């Protein structure tokens, strides 16, 4: 295994550390420090994958995160990752990668037939062709999506761990090229807390690959020195392999750090990636610029590469990707690459779009024996899996036509350089405004947002020395803004590059052998296979606005978000529309800047941490005894306990009858509980609840309704007076947090002078609710206290010892049976539960779940707030006028009871419904009508809120909200079901069982 294109020396790779890796099943050798792209090029592998739509062979276009072509499927099975950019994958032992979107292989791909039909596959083709019949789109789409596409998403759960980190700093610098490093050092020396991030493993940016000089040192040396100082400072955090992906309001920046992606068998305790959520007082953007491709026919073949990328491969990785190189350019800067390649032994021919080049360039070409074609353009390229020749022709003065004969020359690498596009994506995300700059033919930052700086080439400034001085000043100024004003020395004296980038001549596209409008392959967006002719088509068909063109052609919509394509697309639109590029405008840049894993965004908030589960102290017992669970808010509550393979209906019937005839037990710990204390507690309760609380004796319990200011019921529960100024409030299980906030809101915003303190104690108590005719006998066997009807009557609480544990026992009932709610500190919950179960054996004690609880309470006509009410029911609507005080001057909701809408007749009222056939259990949510039509619409007069089969009564019962229901008892209403049947039901009172309450009271 020998690296055909590897240079003997040079670059940051370690030639003493070879690494074996696999690409499409074949083993290759690279070195530590290589990327997958550089290692493949070293092995003379140029064909990496097939394109999205036409399945054209594609190679490596760039050397960085902007790469549109060289996407690979990385790793296998559960760790597989689609669309990984070969230019960013660091080589490690055992790395496996494969080509995407090709079958059976990248070399012989059946999908490439699409390329032959490309004349009939223009932008919008699928939408136009597969329009009829509309319902069949889903069918077509399946095949279209299979044919087009990139990598495959993993089908298994990813075993890796991802972390998130919140970070706060004074100054954040995005990009650690020489400008970013300068700014970071200036801010750090001034005393600010600085964070600097860079997406590459090695910091230093593009100048790592150049012969630039800073302060009379090689740029590389200067970078090394600067980095070592930054790393030594305690107020600086330096993060490599970290890409800022999103820039949101007020300098909130997200960044994705690759922690172990690049390490083989990452069995380490470290996460795979870390997602940083950064808030920085000042932000300095120093992301540099992307080289712009040139638009000509066949500009997408493997072996066609950006000039700057070749520079990086030669200088940083010691790889010369071709020996007979052609360089197609419109600017001076690219000549640096020609000189570099020649110095490594390559032959270089330069094709320059410009008619005149400077004397300096002419001299440079003479010195280095560079063959040049001025005022020439590449008109087509040749070669099937890789470029092997190009055709060029001389341009007319206006660049609109050709003069002279076409010349074809052999080449094994075509480099292109169309100028530079500042990386304004993050700046634009931050809502900074852009403007078009004619000098560099691209967009540059114009109006900045608060507390932000953009420096260097990112700001469109290509003069190295000036850039560094700006960066120094930005660093000092940003530090100063955050109060760090240490005087520092100006540490930039001299800086220069061999060839500065000054201007680039705009030629939106190069004519080819056939007209651009006729399906020619002038590629703009390599990743989404969008060509210049697609832009022409969009303009012809009226998709003229930049946003429309984008969506119609999909230019800039691939995973690279058009980093290499956007400006060229706009230039062509400007050419067609005959107006300046600045007036064509640009589309909005959105996060993420590079594709970002869902794993990192989710961090640790997955599986059981996605939504916390709340478990009671007795949870394990429920599990061990076969409970089926139901989610109530975040609580896991037993739904029912099936015995001997019972179905739900049989289990609920059995549980209901046990509770009515002997004794049942419910884990009611989830009930919301709020401890209320303070001298104004009674006064406070009077305002919160609709009924009166002043005269409640110590030890007495009272049921209460809470209304909001609109007069609508929003929670209910029993509150007990524990002591002189001490109350124990209970709320619904789901409403506990809401009620707590409601109490705090009024105490803190309206009644600031009240001395009342509220504490949530929901989780401090385990509540065992035992109910049924035998419950008193059972409890009596567990306590020494007398708990007969005189000593512990209905709606009373006594603090007594149960099973030797200090408990509060409440005689309250949600089932209508004799019932005791035993509250013990949660740490004794399981202990007491076990004791009760043991003592209950002789009564055949039966644990029951929430469904049985619901049936039992419905038999008694007790409402469940949120099920029988929906935020639009007043106490009166629920027939609960008895609980609304007439005497109290004020309470929350009172004033709204006399609003015209709340006070009117004919509102919906709570009623009971009994089906006339005595067997149909109406589906909850069913609509009630007075007259049934064959099919909807029908005039609705109400809906079913609760509906069950009552095991106690032997027939179904239902509760409903019915228009004017109070006055309609005895009437027959109709309930049309989904299957077309119409059920008759009689309106009744909503209490179905033991109306006098004899069972619960005695």
């Amino acid at each position: 295994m020998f690296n055909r294109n590897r240079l003997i020396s040079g670059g940051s790779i370690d030639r003493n550390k070879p690494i074996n890796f696999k690409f499409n099943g074949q083993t290759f050798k690279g070195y530590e420090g290589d990327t997958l792209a550089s290692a493949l090029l070293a092995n003379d592998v140029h064909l990496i994958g097939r394109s999205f739509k036409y399945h054209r062979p594609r190679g490596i276009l760039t050397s960085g995160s902007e790469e549109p072509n060289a996407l690979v499927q990385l790793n296998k099975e559960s760790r597989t990752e689609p669309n990984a950019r070969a230019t960013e994958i660091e080589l490690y032992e055992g790395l496996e990668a494969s080509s995407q979107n090709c079958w059976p292989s990248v070399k012989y791909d059946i999908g490439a037939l699409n390329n032959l039909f490309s004349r009939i596959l223009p932008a919008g083709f699928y939408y136009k062709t597969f329009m009829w019949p509309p319902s069949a789109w889903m069918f077509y789409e399946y095949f279209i999506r299979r044919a087009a596409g990139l990598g495959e998403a993993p089908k298994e759960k990813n075993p890796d761990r991802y972390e998130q980190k919140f970070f706060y700093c004074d100054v954040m610098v995005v990009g650690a090229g020489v400008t970013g490093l300068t700014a970071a050092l200036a801010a750090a020396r001034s005393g600010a807390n600085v964070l600097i991030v860079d997406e590459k493993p090695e910091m230093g940016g593009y100048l790592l690959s150049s012969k630039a000089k800073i302060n009379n040192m090689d740029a590389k040396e200067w970078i090394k020195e600067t980095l070592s100082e930054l790393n030594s400072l305690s107020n600086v955090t330096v993060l490599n392999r970290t890409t800022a992906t999103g820039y949101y309001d007020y300098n909130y920046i997200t960044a994705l750090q690759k922690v172990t992606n690049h390490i083989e068998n990452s069995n380490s305790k470290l996460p795979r990636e870390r997602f940083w959520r950064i808030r920085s007082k000042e932000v300095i953007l120093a992301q540099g610029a992307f080289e712009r491709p040139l638009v000509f026919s066949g500009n997408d073949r493997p072996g066609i590469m950006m000039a700057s990328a070749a520079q990086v491969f030669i200088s940083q990785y010691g790889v010369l990707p071709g020996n007979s190189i052609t360089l197609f350019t419109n600017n001076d800067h690219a000549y640096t690459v020609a000189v570099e390649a020649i110095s490594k032994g390559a032959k270089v021919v330069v094709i320059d779009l410009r008619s005149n080049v400077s004397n300096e360039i002419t001299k440079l070409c003479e010195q280095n024996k560079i063959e040049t074609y001025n005022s020439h353009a590449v008109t087509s390229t040749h070669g099937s899996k890789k470029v092997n020749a190009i055709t060029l022709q001389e341009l007319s003065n206006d660049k609109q036509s050709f003069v002279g004969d076409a010349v074809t020359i052999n080449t094994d690498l075509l480099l292109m350089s169309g100028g530079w596009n500042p990386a304004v994506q993050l700046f634009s995300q931050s809502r900074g405004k852009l403007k078009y700059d004619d000098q560099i033919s691209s967009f540059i930052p114009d109006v900045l947002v608060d507390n932000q700086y953009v420096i260097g080439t990112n700001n469109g400034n290509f003069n190295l020395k000036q850039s560094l001085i700006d960066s120094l000043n930005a660093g000092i100024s940003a530090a100063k803004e955050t109060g760090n004003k240490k005087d520092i020395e100006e540490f930039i004296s001299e800086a220069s590059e061999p060839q500065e980038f000054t201007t680039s001549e705009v030629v939106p596209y190069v004519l080819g052998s056939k007209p651009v409008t006729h399906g020619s392959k002038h590629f703009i967006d390599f990743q989404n296979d969008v060509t210049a002719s697609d832009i022409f088509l969009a303009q012809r068909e009226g998709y003229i606005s930049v946003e429309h063109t984008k969506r119609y052609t999909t230019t800039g919509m691939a995973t690279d978000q058009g980093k290499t394509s956007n400006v060229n697309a706009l230039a062509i639109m400007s050419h067609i529309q005959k107006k300046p590029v600045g007036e064509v405008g640009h589309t909005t840049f959105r996060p993420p800047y590079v594709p970002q894993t869902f794993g990192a965004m989710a961090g640790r908030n997955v599986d059981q941490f996605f939504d916390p589960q709340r478990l009671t102290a007795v949870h394990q017992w429920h599990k061990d005894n076969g409970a089926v669970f139901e989610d109530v808010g975040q609580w896991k509550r037993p739904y029912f306990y099936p015995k001997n393979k019972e179905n739900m209906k049989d289990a609920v019937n059995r549980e209901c009858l046990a509770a009515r005839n002997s004794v049942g037990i419910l884990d009611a710990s989830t009930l919301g509980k709020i401890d209320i204390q303070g001298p104004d507690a009674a006064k406070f309760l009077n305002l919160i609840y609709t009924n009166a609380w002043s005269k409640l004796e110590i030890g007495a319990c009272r049921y209460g309704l809470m209304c909001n200011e609109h007069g609508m019921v929003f929670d209910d529960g029993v509150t007990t007076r524990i002591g002189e100024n001490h109350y124990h409030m209970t709320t619904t299980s789901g409403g506990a947090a809401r009620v707590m906030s409601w109490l705090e809101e009024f105490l803190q915003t309206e009644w600031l002078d009240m001395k009342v303190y509220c504490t949530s104690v929901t989780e401090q108590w385990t509540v065992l609710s035992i109910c049924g005719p035998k419950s008193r006998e059972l409890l009596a066997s567990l306590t020494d206290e007398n708990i007969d009807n005189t000593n512990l009557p209905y709606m009373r609480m006594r603090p007594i010892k149960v099973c030797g544990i200090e408990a509060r026992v409440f005689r309250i009932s949600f089932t209508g049976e004799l019932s005791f709610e035993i509250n013990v500190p949660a740490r004794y919950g399981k202990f007491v539960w076990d004791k009760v179960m043991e003592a209950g054996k002789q009564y055949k004690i039966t644990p029951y779940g929430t469904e049985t609880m619901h049936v039992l309470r419905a038999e008694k006509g007790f409402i469940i707030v949120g099920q029988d009410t929906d935020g639009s029911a007043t106490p009166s609507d629920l027939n609960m006028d008895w609980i609304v005080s007439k005497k109290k001057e004020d309470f929350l909701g009172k004033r709204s009871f006399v609003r015209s809408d709340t006070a009117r007749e004919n509102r919906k009222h709570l009623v009971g419904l009994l089906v006339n056939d005595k067997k149909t259990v109406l589906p909850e949510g069913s609509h009630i009508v007075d007259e049934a039509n064959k099919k909807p619409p029908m005039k609705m007069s109400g809906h079913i809120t609760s509906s069950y089969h009552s095991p106690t009564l032997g027939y179904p019962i239902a509760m409903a909200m019915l228009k004017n229901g109070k006055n309609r008892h005895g009437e027959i209403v109709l309930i049309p079901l989904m299957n077309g049947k119409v059920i008759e039901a009689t309106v009744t009172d909503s209490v179905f069982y033991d109306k006098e309450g004899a069972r619960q009271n005695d």
Partner: protein
Amino acid sequence: MFVIKCPYCGERDQTEFSCHGESHIARPENPNEVNDKEWGEYLFFRSNPKGIHYERWTHDHGCRQWFNVKRHTVTDKIIQTYTMGESKPEDNNV
């Protein structure tokens, strides 16, 4: 996304807080004495300005205290935070 200064705890991340709409809307002293229109205004009507807005926030995942925030609805800039019961600051310093 902001860092918000809780008057009790100091600067904390926005994710610890929640907003509860317009502030300085006092509950009528005696609700029985206001007419339907006045009561309706208390219940339903809010100013919804483009510009300076005074609103109520709570530090839910912190001290659980309610406080006031003076915020610009266009720029989202939080200009001032102050405790409940403090009087409404002037509109001028935008």
